[in-house]
C-alpha cells in the first residue's frame, strides 16, 4: 500500500498514535486571554485532528513558571490550575476526531524579554545575556532552581488533569534546561554546572519530578537539539551522550530532535528552514539520536511532502515525522493522502510567513491558506457548493488574489472565467520565484494551477481583459485582482520614463523577470526593504554584477522576517554585495556612458555619489485602477465592499439583493499594495459566499 509507513500506528509510552505524522510544538501566538487556550486555539487543533493528523504537540514554549513571561508570544500558561478546564475542551475537540494531543512545557530562562508584563527578572545558569532577544538576566539561585523544578511537575499535572495525552519537556531552542546543559551558557562551578552530570542535573531533576507527579501512564517526552552548531556549544556527539543519559532512566517516552541552536540570528534561521534549504536538512542529526535511544524519535524540519515522509519513515531514520508547517498550509494533508488527492494538497513552500510573524509576536498565519487559524471565524478549509443560483463569475488577474478568487468561486459551483495578461498564472509570485533560492515560492502558483484545472475554470491566459470583453461575458460578478506596476514615477529626480530608452532607472521586476539585462556595476535603491530588493541584489550578484544595495531604512532587508533575512545575508555577503543604510536616492543623472546616483544621508543631509551602469529602484507597487474605474459606475454595488460583513466573515449583503447588472469587487494590490496573504484572505472572505 502506498504510504503504508505513514499509516502504521505507533505506541508512544502507553499511547497509540494512529499514524506517523505529528504537528510539532510551535508558538501559535493566539492562546490569548492570559495564557488560557481560546476557541480559536481549540478550533485550530481540531481542524488538524479532523484532517487526520496523528499527534499534535501544541503550545510551543508554554510556560510552567510566572517568571518565564507568557505574554510575548501569547503562549499557554501552565503555572495556574485555571488552565485545566481549557485543556479539557482542547483534548475533547482533538480526541473526538481520533487524534492525540500533548503540550510542550518549558521555562525559557534567559530566552525571553523582560521589558513588559510583570517586568520579570529573567534567570539563566550564569547570567549571560541572550543576543537574539537582547535579554539580560540574573544568575539563577538554588532556591529558584528547586521552585522551577516543582513548577514543571505541577504544570505536567495540570496537563494530565486537563485530559491531554502527554507533555513534551522543552530542552531545545536554548531554554532553561538546555541552558544548563550547554557550556556555552552554563559557567557554574557548583553542583549545577561544570561536569557532565552536574550540567545534566537540572533537566534530570525536572524529569524525575514530573514523572513522580504524573506516574507511568502519562506520556512524558523531551525535545532536544541534535547539534547546537555553536563552536562553544553542544556538538552532535554531546547530544548523543545527553540523549542516551536521559533515555537510560527509562522515564522518557519519546525524543523530539531538531537541528541547530538559535541564540544568534544566523542559527535561528536553521531551526525553521526556509525555502532556501534542501529537504530535511538535519535528518541525520535525529537519526544519530535514534541510534542511541530506545524510545520513538520525532523529527521535524522541512518535511512537507507525503512521499518525502514515507521515504524517511521507510528508511527507518526516525519513527515519526513532524509536518508542522505542512499542516499550517493544509490541515487536511493526511485526509487528502487517504482520499488519493495528493495533487490537491496545498504544500508548504517555506515562505516562513508563519514563523516570521510569530517572531514579531503576531499570530501565526499561512501565506497561502487564509483559513488556517481562522477556523473559529467560520472560514472554511473545504469550500461547500452553493445551494443558491449558479453565477457567471469573471476574475481579472492571475496573481494570488485572482487565483484564490477563481478557485473559491469555482468550488462554490459557479461558472468561472479568469483573465491573465501574462502567458502564465502567478502574477508577482512568478517574478519573486526568479531570484536565487526563492524558486519554491512558485509552489503557490503550482497548486492553484492544478486546482483551477481540476475545477475546470476557463483560463484566458495571455489575454488582457478590457471593459468590452468583460461585459460581453454577461457576468453576474466581476472580481478585479489586476495588481499594479512598480512605482518608479514617485520622484521625478529619479529620471524614470515609460520609454525604456530614456529611463534612467529600472525596477526590480525588470531585473528579476529578465526584461532588462543585468548591468555590470549596479546600484539598487530599496525603499521597501522586503523581499524584492534583496532578491534583485542576490539575482544580480549571481549573474556576476558588482552590487551595492542602498536603503533609507535601518538595513537592507529589514522588513524580511527573522528566519529569512539571514539566508539572504549569507548569500549577499558571500557574493560581496555592499549593503548601505540611511541613504535616500536623491537623484539620478546620465554622465557619459554611465549613470550617477546621488545619495543623501537621512541624518546629515550630506550627498554622496555612485558611478554605476545600472540603477535599480524598488519602491513598491502603484495599484492598477483603470479597469476598476471603467466598471465602477456600471456595477450594481459601485465596487464597494461592506466592511462590517467582510470583517465578520459574513456574506456581502449585495449578494442577496436582486437587480440588473453585475457586482464588482476588487482585491489585492490593485486596491492598495499589501502582500500575498492579504490578497488571498480578501479573496477567500469575499468569494466564499458567492
Amino acid at each position: 500500500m502506498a504510504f503504508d509507513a505513514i499509516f502504521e500506528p505507533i505506541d508512544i509510552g502507553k499511547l497509540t498514535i494512529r499514524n506517523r505524522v505529528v504537528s510539532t510544538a510551535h508558538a501559535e501566538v493566539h492562546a490569548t486571554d492570559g495564557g488560557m487556550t481560546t476557541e480559536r486555539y481549540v478550533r485550530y487543533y481540531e481542524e488538524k485532528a479532523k484532517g487526520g493528523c496523528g499527534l499534535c504537540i501544541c503550545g510551543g514554549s508554554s510556560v510552567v513558571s510566572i517568571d518565564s513571561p507568557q505574554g510575548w508570544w501569547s503562549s499557554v500558561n501552565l503555572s495556574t490550575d485555571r488552565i485545566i478546564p481549557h485543556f479539557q475542551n482542547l483534548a475533547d475537540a482533538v480526541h473526538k476526531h481520533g487524534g492525540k494531543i500533548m503540550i510542550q512545557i518549558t521555562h525559557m530562562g534567559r530566552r525571553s524579554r523582560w521589558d513588559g508584563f510583570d517586568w520579570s527578572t529573567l534567570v539563566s545558569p550564569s547570567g549571560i545575556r541572550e543576543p537574539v532577544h537582547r535579554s539580560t538576566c540574573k544568575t539563577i539561585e538554588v532556591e529558584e532552581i528547586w521552585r522551577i523544578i516543582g513548577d514543571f511537575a505541577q504544570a505536567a499535572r495540570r496537563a494530565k488533569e486537563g485530559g491531554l495525552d502527554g507533555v513534551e519537556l522543552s530542552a531545545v531552542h536554548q531554554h532553561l534546561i538546555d541552558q544548563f546543559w550547554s557550556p556555552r551558557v552554563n559557567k557554574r562551578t557548583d553542583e549545577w554546572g561544570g561536569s557532565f552530570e552536574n550540567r545534566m542535573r537540572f533537566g534530570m531533576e525536572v524529569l524525575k519530578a514530573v514523572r513522580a507527579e504524573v506516574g507511568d501512564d502519562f506520556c512524558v517526552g523531551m525535545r532536544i537539539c541534535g547539534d547546537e552548531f555553536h563552536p562553544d556549544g553542544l556538538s552532535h556527539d554531546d547530544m548523543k551522550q545527553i540523549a542516551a543519559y536521559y533515555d537510560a532512566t527509562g522515564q522518557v517516552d519519546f525524543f523530539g530532535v531538531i537541528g541547530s541552536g538559535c541564540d544568534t540570528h544566523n542559527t535561528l534561521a536553521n531551526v525553521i528552514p526556509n525555502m532556501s534549504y534542501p529537504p530535511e536538512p538535519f535528518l541525520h542529526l535525529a537519526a544519530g539520536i535514534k541510534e542511541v535511544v530506545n524510545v520513538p524519535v520525532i523529527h521535524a524540519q522541512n518535511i512537507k511532502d507525503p512521499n518525502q515522509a514515507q521515504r524517511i519513515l521507510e528508511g527507518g531514520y526516525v519513527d515519526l515525522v513532524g509536518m508542522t508547517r505542512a499542516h499550517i498550509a493544509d490541515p487536511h494533508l493526511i485526509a487528502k493522502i487517504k482520499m488519493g488527492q495528493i495533487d490537491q494538497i496545498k504544500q508548504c513552500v517555506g515562505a516562513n510567513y508563519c514563523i516570521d510573524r510569530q517572531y514579531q509576536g503576531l499570530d501565526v498565519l499561512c501565506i497561502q491558506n487564509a483559513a488556517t487559524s481562522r477556523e473559529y471565524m467560520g472560514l472554511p478549509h473545504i469550500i461547500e457548493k452553493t445551494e443558491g443560483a449558479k453565477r457567471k463569475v469573471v476574475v481579472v488577474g492571475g496573481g494570488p488574489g485572482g487565483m484564490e478568487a477563481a478557485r473559491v468561486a469555482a468550488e462554490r459551483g459557479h461558472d468561472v472565467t479568469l483573465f491573465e495578461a501574462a502567458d502564465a498564472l502567478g502574477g508577482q509570485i512568478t517574478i519573486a520565484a526568479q531570484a536565487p533560492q526563492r524558486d519554491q515560492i512558485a509552489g503557490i502558483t503550482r497548486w492553484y494551477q492544478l486546482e483551477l484545472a481540476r475545477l475546470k475554470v476557463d483560463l484566458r491566459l495571455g489575454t488582457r481583459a478590457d471593459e468590452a470583453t468583460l461585459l460581453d461575458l454577461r457576468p453576474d460578478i466581476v472580481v478585479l485582482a489586476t495588481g499594479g506596476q512598480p512605482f518608479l514615477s514617485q520622484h521625478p529626480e529619479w529620471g524614470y520614463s515609460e520609454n525604456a530608452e530614456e529611463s534612467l532607472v529600472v525596477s526590480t521586476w525588470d531585473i528579476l523577470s529578465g526584461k532588462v539585462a543585468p548591468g555590470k556595476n549596479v546600484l539598487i535603491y530599496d525603499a521597501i526593504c522586503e523581499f524584492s530588493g534583496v532578491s534583485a541584489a542576490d539575482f544580480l550578484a549571481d549573474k556576476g554584477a558588482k552590487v551595492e544595495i542602498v536603503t533609507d531604512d535601518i538595513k537592507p532587508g529589514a522588513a524580511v522576517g527573522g528566519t529569512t533575512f539571514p539566508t539572504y545575508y549569507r548569500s549577499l555577503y558571500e557574493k560581496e554585495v555592499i549593503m548601505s543604510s540611511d541613504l535616500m536616492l536623491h537623484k539620478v543623472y546620465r554622465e557619459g556612458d554611465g549613470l550617477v546616483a546621488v545619495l543623501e544621508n537621512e541624518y546629515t543631509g550630506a550627498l554622496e555619489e555612485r558611478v554605476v551602469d545600472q540603477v535599480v529602484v524598488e519602491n513598491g507597487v502603484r495599484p492598477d485602477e483603470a479597469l476598476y474605474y471603467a466598471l465602477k459606475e456600471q456595477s450594481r454595488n459601485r465596487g464597494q465592499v461592506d466592511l462590517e460583513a467582510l470583517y465578520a466573515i459574513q456574506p456581502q449583503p449585495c449578494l442577496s439583493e436582486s437587480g440588473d447588472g453585475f457586482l464588482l469587487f476588487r482585491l489585492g494590490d490593485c486596491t492598495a499594495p499589501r502582500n500575498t496573504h492579504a490578497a488571498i484572505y480578501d479573496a477567500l472572505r469575499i468569494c466564499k459566499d458567492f
Partner: protein
Amino acid sequence: MRLPKSLMAFSLGVFLITLPTVGLLPQGLLEGGSSWLLALVLAGVVAWGLGEMFFGMTWGGPMKHAFAGALHLAFHRRAERFSTKKGGAGRSTGLKALNLEDEAAPLGVEKPADFTWNQLLGFDACVQCGRCEAVCPAFAAGQPLNPKKLIQDMVVGMAGGSDAAYAGSPYPGKPVGEHAGSPHGPIVALQGKALVDADTLWSCTTCRACVEECPMMIEHVDAIVDMRRHLTLERGKTPNKGAEVLDNLIATDNPGGFDPGSRLNWAADLNLPLMADLKQVDVLLWLGDGAFDMRNQRTLRALVKVLRAAEVDFAVLGTEERDSGDVARRLGDEATFQSLAKRNIATLAKYRFLQIVTCDPHSFHVLGNEYGELGGDYQVRHHSTFIAELYEAGRLAFAPWKGGSVTYHDPCYLGRYNGEYEAPRNVLKALGIEVKEMERSGYRSRCCGGGGGAPITDIPGERRIPDMRMNDVKESGAELVAVGCPQCTAMLEGVVDASAEVRDIAELVADALVERPAGDASDGPRRPAATTTAEEVTV
C-alpha cells in the same frame, strides 16, 4: 439443417402411409404387387427420419439439444437451482470443492473428458441462442472470450475436431479454424494452440451474467474455474500478477502481501472491540482485504460509524482475520482457498456471534456459500442488508438527501450470486434517494470487471469493462453511483474522467446520520461500543 429434413421425411412418410386408410387414396394402393415397393420406400423414409432424430440425439443429430437438454436438467449438477428450499429461489452459486486428499485425482480439468458427465451434458444442451454472448462483459470489452463459443468448443472437443464450422462470433481477436481438440487431448496446449487458449479462460470475471441468462441452465463459470484449476494447480500457469497474488496469499494471508499485523492499522484511532477480548457478540464485522486499501478503509470507517450509531454489539477479528479465499479460488488455486478457509473456520469456531456482517460481497458469498462444504456454517449479511434491517428497526435516522441524482450498481456477488437486489435499494430509499436505474441493473447488471481475479490476470481487450460500466452510469444521467463492494469501488473509481462520483452505501448512510429521536424504537440497552469514539470517521 438436419432437423427439418428428418422431420419432413418422417411426417411425409407417415402421412402418405395413412392416406389410403382415410380414403383419400385407393385402399389397394399399398396392397398390390408393385405397391410393396412403394410401402418399402415410404417405410424407409419414415425409418430414416425417425432414426435421424433418435440416434442423432447422441451423434450430434437434430434432437440432441432436446434430448441432452432434458437429461441435463434432470441430472443437473446443481439440483438446488430447481428448489426453493435453500438460498432463495433456486440459487446455487458456490463453487464445488476439489477433493485434495485423493492423491490420484486430477486437479481440475485438463481435457474435455475430465469434465463430469453431467457437465458434458450441459455443453450438449446448448442451443446457441447467444444470450450469454450478449451479456458477457469480457466479450463486450473485446477480450478473447465468448461464452457461447467456449461451450461450443467444449462440444467440439468431446467429439474431436476443429472449430472451423463454428458460424457465430469468434473470440475477439481469434479467428475460427485455428483451434482443434479431442476428448483426451489437452484443452489448453502446453505450447502452441489446442482447443482454447489460456487467455480465453483468464478473461472471465466470474460475474455469472451468462449463467443467469442461459435458458438451458449451463454452468459456464464452473467449467472455466475447473479449467483454471488445472492451469494453476498442475501447471503453475496463472498469468500476469496471478502467481504473485497467490504467493502473497500463501505467505501473508492477504493478496497484497501486506504485513498481516497491519490489518487493523486503519482503525488505530477507533478502538474497535476485538473478538479475542469479547468472545461473544451479536455481530462479527468481517473486514475483508479492503482493510489494507485506503479507499475501502473509508467505507469501513463509515460502516463502523453506522454500527455505533445504531448501538450494535459488534467486534472484529482484527489481525486474526485472513483473506476469505475468494480470489485464490477463482484463480483456480483451490489448495490455497481451502487452507485459508479452514483456518478462518477454526478462528471463527473460537467465538460466539449471531451473524457476520461485511461490506465485501466476495467475503459475503464465500463465507456464506462456500465455507459450508468445509464445515463452516454462518449467517452472513451484506452491510446493505444489515443497514436496511437496522433502519427498519428504527435504530438509524437520516437527514434528508441533499445531493444530486443517484444510480445503483449491483455487485455481481451480491446480486446474481446471492439474489440481494432489494436491501441496497431500500437503504437508498430510506436516505431519500430516488434511484435512477441503469438500463442494465438488478439481475442483468453489468459487471465492473473486478471479479474472478480478472484485474490480476489482466487480459488485454479493446476497451475496459469499468469504462463501459461508467458509461452505463453516465447514460442513466446520475451524478453519483452508489456501490456496495470494495472491488466495484476500486474498478469504477479507476475510470478516468468519470462523469459520476463513486460512493459506498455505507458512506452515504454515515454522512446522513442524525440523532435518533428520543424514545424511538430500539431493542434494549446495548453494550457501549468503546470508551472513545472517533466522531469524524471519513478519514
